């Protein structure tokens, strides 16, 4: 007891990080935890990307050459799950951990011990998920959406492990989200009113709300899968009065807000970076906040656009079509605000800015194909084809992934105290940009021409574009190794970075030295 009191009395400035492995295992420091999140999520990105490479290699030509369809389905499923739950969501939580306290002038996250638990539960859940790859009967093979009854009566043994891993990952994310909300609401420096918060903080606040609202719903859905598998219930079995489509309703009630969970923090990041490199304040801050909130609210009302062909009654079909289309309006507001921020600015093209511009351009492509998908009668053709795959990779990679890359380049000087090589960063951007478009643009054509998704083998008419796509995918994949090298090189012996390496940057995070000291803002700064 006295030791605790002593610790409090002591001046925190004297505390560096603990030594050895214990620093990482037991830490309550938001920067350590943020780093662990970022490193872990990047490892998962490589793992999920390696699976994508297997998918693309198999699809290089018609016929079965690399893998059996049974294994192909496992790759598709695990690729989706690993990318979403292992790569993108944790990367955003890592960014939140590092940056939100720095941006609102708080000494740490509001609930630091729980913060550590969130991270280690992420590892726990991921370990269980990955372990399914080595089980008898193989990993989950029913798509990341796990539709019943393919995942219940017909699922492999590993389904049970998958279900519990989703529970654990869900708990981890909910705790992370609670922490973010408590930090933002409660820990802001004096004078930092809500409408003065950086956009990244705003978008994360809204994302956290979405997480807390929908992850429990996913937990409910997979719990019902579990019950159908092991306890004889009939939730998704018409023979007992249930309905397989019920699963889809619950899943997508989670699933659609989930895709905005994967994009809103990236919106926030872009709203930080574009003003910095345009040397001009963000245009329409207030409308940005409202647009983000509108997207979040609407996201609860559109879930059945993933289910246009399951046989919804006509009024449902119409409602979900209209509701989905409306989301284009607030999203458009954001796009236009970003462009207007650049308009009449003084723009320079450092790597973060390149990724940000790439984001705005390519996300628009993905968003517009989303609007096409939202047209219900046309979705009777598009649904479950590569057109959908093209859509969501265009919003996920130039959206979520570019957002993360941009922030890595933007804040790396703050995290490590060192600059990356601008030339290499630009190379990374251009290789990614080219590879990405070669990989995913042809998928639009494939889908329209009639190629269904989740196919291990396909008619020969789709051979050409698949070949192109695979080449692009390998280019994109290989250029990610460059990122590993760039970051490694910068951290090891990059040139020292100033406290504020970007001329046009604004915000509290640039008022502390680079690298940010282990403890920052123990006395809250004043914001006016």
């Amino acid at each position, binding site marked *: *007891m006295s030791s*605790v*009191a002593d610790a*409090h009395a002591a001046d*925190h400035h004297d505390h560096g990080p*603990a030594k050895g492995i214990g620093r990482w295992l*037991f830490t*309550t*420091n938001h920067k350590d935890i943020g780093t662990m999140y970022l490193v872990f999520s990047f490892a998962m990105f490589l793992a999920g990307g390696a699976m994508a490479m297997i998918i693309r290699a198999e699809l290089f030509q018609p016929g079965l050459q690399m893998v059996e369809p049974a294994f192909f389905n496992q790759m598709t499923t695990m690729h989706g799950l690993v990318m979403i739950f292992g790569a993108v969501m944790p990367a955003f939580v890592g960014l939140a951990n590092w940056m939100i306290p720095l941006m609102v002038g708080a*000494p740490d996250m*509001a*609930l630091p*011990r*729980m913060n*550590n*638990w969130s*991270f*280690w*539960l992420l*590892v*726990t859940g991921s370990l*269980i998920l990955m372990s399914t790859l080595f089980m008898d009967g193989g990993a989950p093979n029913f798509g990341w959406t796990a539709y019943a009854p393919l995942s219940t009566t017909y699922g492999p*043994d590993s389904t*049970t*492990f998958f279900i*519990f*891993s989703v529970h654990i990952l869900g708990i981890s994310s909910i705790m992370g*989200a*609670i922490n973010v909300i*408590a930090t933002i609401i*409660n*820990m*802001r420096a*004096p004078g930092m009113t809500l409408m003065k918060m950086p956009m990244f903080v705003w978008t994360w606040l809204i994302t956290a709300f979405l997480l*807390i609202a929908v992850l*429990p*719903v996913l937990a*409910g*859905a997979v*719990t*019902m899968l579990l019950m159908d*598998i*092991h*306890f*004889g*219930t009939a*939730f998704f*079995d*018409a023979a*007992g*009065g*249930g*309905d397989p489509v*019920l699963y889809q*309703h619950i899943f997508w009630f989670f699933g659609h807000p989930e895709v905005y969970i994967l994009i809103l923090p990236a919106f926030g990041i872009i709203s930080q970076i574009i003003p910095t490199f345009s040397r001009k304040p963000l245009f329409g801050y207030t409308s940005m906040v409202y647009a983000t909130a509108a997207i979040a609210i609407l996201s609860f009302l559109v879930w059945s656009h993933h289910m246009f062909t399951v*046989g919804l*009654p006509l009024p449902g079909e119409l409602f979900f079509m209209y509701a989905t289309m409306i989301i284009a309006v607030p999203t458009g507001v954001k796009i236009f605000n970003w462009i207007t921020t650049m308009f009449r600015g003084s723009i320079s093209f450092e790597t973060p800015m390149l990724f940000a511009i790439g984001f705005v351009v390519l996300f628009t492509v993905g968003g517009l194909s989303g609007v096409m998908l939202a047209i219900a009668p046309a979705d009777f053709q598009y649904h479950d084809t590569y057109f959908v795959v093209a859509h969501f990779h265009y919003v996920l990679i130039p959206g979520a992934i570019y957002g993360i890359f941009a922030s890595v380049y933007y804040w790396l000087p703050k995290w490590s105290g060192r600059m990356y090589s601008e030339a290499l960063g630009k190379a990374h951007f251009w290789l990614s940009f080219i590879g990405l478009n070669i990989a995913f643009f042809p998928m639009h054509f494939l889908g329209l021409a009639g190629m269904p998704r989740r196919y291990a083998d396909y008619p020969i008419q789709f051979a050409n574009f698949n070949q192109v796509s695979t080449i692009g995918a390998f280019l994109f994949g290989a250029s990610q190794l460059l990122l590993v090298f760039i970051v490694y090189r910068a951290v090891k012996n990059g040139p020292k970075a100033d406290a504020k390496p970007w001329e046009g940057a604004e915000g509290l995070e640039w008022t502390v030295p680079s690298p940010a000291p282990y403890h920052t803002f*123990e*006395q*809250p700064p004043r914001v006016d």
Partner: protein
Amino acid sequence: MSSNQSYYVPESSIWPIVGSIGMFLTFFGLSTLLVNQSNGDPTTTAWVVFTIGALVLIYMITGWLRDVIRESRAGLYDAQMDRSFRQGMSWFIFSEVAFFAALFGSLFYIRFFAVPWLGGEGAKGTANMLWEGFQAQWPLLSNPDNSQFAGPDSVIGPWGLPLLNTLILVTSSITLTLSHKALKYDKRKQTIYWLAATVALGAIFLFFQIEEYIEAYSHLNLTLDSGIYGSIFFLMTGFHGLHVLLGGIILFVVLMRLIKGHFSAHDHFGYEAGAWYWHFVDVVWIMLFVFVYVI
């Protein structure tokens, strides 16, 4: 927002990682257990792993709570910290609300869409072609395919045990409020008595609930595998029951702390968190009573 004193950031702690190891063992063990059971394989090892995991988790929870209580008693927490805890707890309850909302949503979908369609009504009534003779009625005593899912003989009427249980839980919310009032006026004896009454009522509720399950299983043929009514009935009341159990345990711990002399009229976040949780569980029950039993 404007505390001058610096925010208390706890020193590094072993509990999160211990908790994660516990979770891993628990759920890896549990999954193996379930899978082996349905494949008819031996389950002993899985039981062992699961049990070790659960023990580690209990160890973690007690250790973690002990730390928090110690810090709180040492006066390390300021008003801002208190707000963080409160917000943490409120959002946790919000996530629970979302969980139950999913279950209620499922209930409504089944009742108002799926079952009528299977019975031949509504926009997708053609489904009845596949289930000749099946009639939609709620509660569902006869399933579309009774050879796969033998329906229950009858279901639990609302006006017996369930009504009693409703009264019990509502009363427990009242006793809890009385206890809370007493705490605010620093009347420790009354606080403890009313809280003890609350915990006791919770225990009685659980006792009746188990009684009801036994009745359902042994006399009514109402089971998890008796079709969708049994499925959703046990899912919803079961998860609610688990929450009563959890809430009861929290309140019990709070009671013990009260007896030890923790909590004051102004400083009793742990107490309030437990109370919020209890009221939440109570509200869920009232919804359950109306939508699962009565309507």
